[in-house]
């Protein structure tokens, strides 16, 4: 004995999980339900941010429609669980079925990711940005017009299955899997594409294959996150998946540091809490009157503040919080 050490990442995950569980309303209740939801949202955004980081930061492509894949995951898994719940309302444990539905949602998003990525990643340059930007809008429009999933009303009545332990499990597995990917020969091939695509090709890397692979894996995890979000809010609505939410995830990746998984995790937590803080803060601002007109600053100003934040990051800390560095927790030790 004594030789056995719990891997650092597992340890960090467990500590976080136990602390939150102790503070949760079910136990000591130090955190109320509202706070729990913010933490759960943060974990979902962790999945979104690191999966986008795989596409934008690791493989060096530029995707603008990450929430589009989340929408696919949300609607696919939401439809499946709604049907299951209607057919079997009295089953004791829905959770295994729920988790399978989430993975199906992820696979749906991965298939869409392949259909989008395969043609556009064969070309070099900015085509992917244009295509994914368009894709994000197309998905929103399609969902607005399919009556089966509620059209503009959104998909309602999704059962509330996204409990903290399940979200935590998915977020943790996503971090582990992406960390393992980056520190394998496949991940190194992806990194080399970011560094220099031509040299990468001349090291024998099938660049198109690896770009598509990174993109599809990113889409898969976005689909997982979308499914979890839908089952947390008990609804999926087209406007949740438009350009602005995609931009928020993008800001997380840039703020955290392109290519740094640690940075994305930190930024996802910081910005999710900041969004809520700003929402509450701006709401609390008093109305003011100029020339007998009464004004109230609306919460839509959050995005203005984010835009300013992004500009400041670009000006003063171009590489984000972490740059390309990783926390030691996320590095698999190599003997030197």
């Amino acid at each position, binding site marked *: 004995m004594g030789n056995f050490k719990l891997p650092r990442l597992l340890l960090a995950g467990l500590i976080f999980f136990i602390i939150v569980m102790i503070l949760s309303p079910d136990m000591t209740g130090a955190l109320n339900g509202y706070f729990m939801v913010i933490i759960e949202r943060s974990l979902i955004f962790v999945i979104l941010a690191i999966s986008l980081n795989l596409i934008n930061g690791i493989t060096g492509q530029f995707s603008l429609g990450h929430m589009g894949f989340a929408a696919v995951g949300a609607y696919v898994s939401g439809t499946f669980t709604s049907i299951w719940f209607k057919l079997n309302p009295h089953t004791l444990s829905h959770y295994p079925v729920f988790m399978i539905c989430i993975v199906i949602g992820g696979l749906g998003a991965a298939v869409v990711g392949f259909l989008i990525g395969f043609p556009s990643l064969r070309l070099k340059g900015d085509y992917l940005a244009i295509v994914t930007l368009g894709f994000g809008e197309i998905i929103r429009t399609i969902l607005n017009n399919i009556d089966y999933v509620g059209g503009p009303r959104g998909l309602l009545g999704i059962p509330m299955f996204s409990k903290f332990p399940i979200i935590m499990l998915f977020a943790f597995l996503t971090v582990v899997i992406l960390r*393992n*990917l980056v520190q394998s*020969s496949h991940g190194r091939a992806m990194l080399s594409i970011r560094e220099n695509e031509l040299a990468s090709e001349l090291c*024998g890397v099938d660049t198109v294959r690896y770009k598509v692979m990174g993109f599809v894996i990113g889409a898969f995890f976005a689909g997982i996150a979308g499914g979890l979000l839908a089952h947390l809010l008990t609804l999926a609505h087209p406007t949740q998946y438009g350009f602005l939410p995609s931009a928020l995830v993008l800001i997380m990746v840039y703020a955290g540091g392109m290519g740094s998984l640690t940075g994305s995790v930190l930024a996802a937590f910081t910005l999710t809490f900041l969004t809520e803080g700003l929402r509450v803060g701006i709401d609390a601002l008093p109305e003011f009157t100029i020339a007998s007109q009464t004004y109230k600053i609306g919460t839509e100003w959050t995005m203005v503040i984010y835009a300013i934040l992004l500009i400041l990051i670009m000006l003063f800390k171009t590489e984000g919080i972490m740059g390309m560095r990783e926390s030691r927790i996320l590095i698999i030790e190599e003997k030197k």
Partner: protein
Amino acid sequence: MSALLSIQGMSHYFGGLKAVSNFTFDVPEGVIYGLIGPNGSGKTTTFNLITGIYTPTEGKVLFEGRDITGQKPFRIVQGGVARTFQNLRIFGNLSVIDNIRVARHFTVKSGLFTSLLRLPSFKQEEEVVREEAMQLIKMMHLEDRAFDQAKNLPYGALRRLEIARALATKPKLVLLDEPAAGMNPKETDDLMGLIRQVRDDFKVTVFLIEHHMKLVMNVCERVKVIDFGETIA
């Protein structure tokens, strides 16, 4: 000796400009072959045609008797042709050892899922790759910097790293595009020894482009001279 690389009637035009015109030559196996000529004479274009970055307008490229004309660059590399660049193309933000490991990646058999789960077979294979990368690093005298970011290395070391990266693909033919560019006389002398050592240790054929006549005359066993896309000697 049989021809490892055989160029047959190869021409390439950029629009109306003739960059390479009706080239025919053989590179025999096991030699150090030199290609010289003034700037703009089509040397680098020749390399780009062989490695598949451009597709020749006319003519064929045969490697080991197989027609590789117009294949994708990564296929040609996997088939056994590696190259370096005149203006370095190093993966700057990766460590020195990772630069080399990228070039070994296509020989790795572990599939995506084996890698994601870090199964024992994956770990074993990673260990082999690491050992081989370290050997190349030692040969290029880069062992002190193996885990540093490549962009922090001095210029001469980067040239050696590029050669190591090319060798890591386990090639039969190595194309060196002006390996001595920007090197001082001492470094150039060391490079000459290194090129011979590479040929002898790795049993590869070396095909190089160079302006540096001393290096060419010392190292190359056969030399071809071109100008304006035409063969002179």
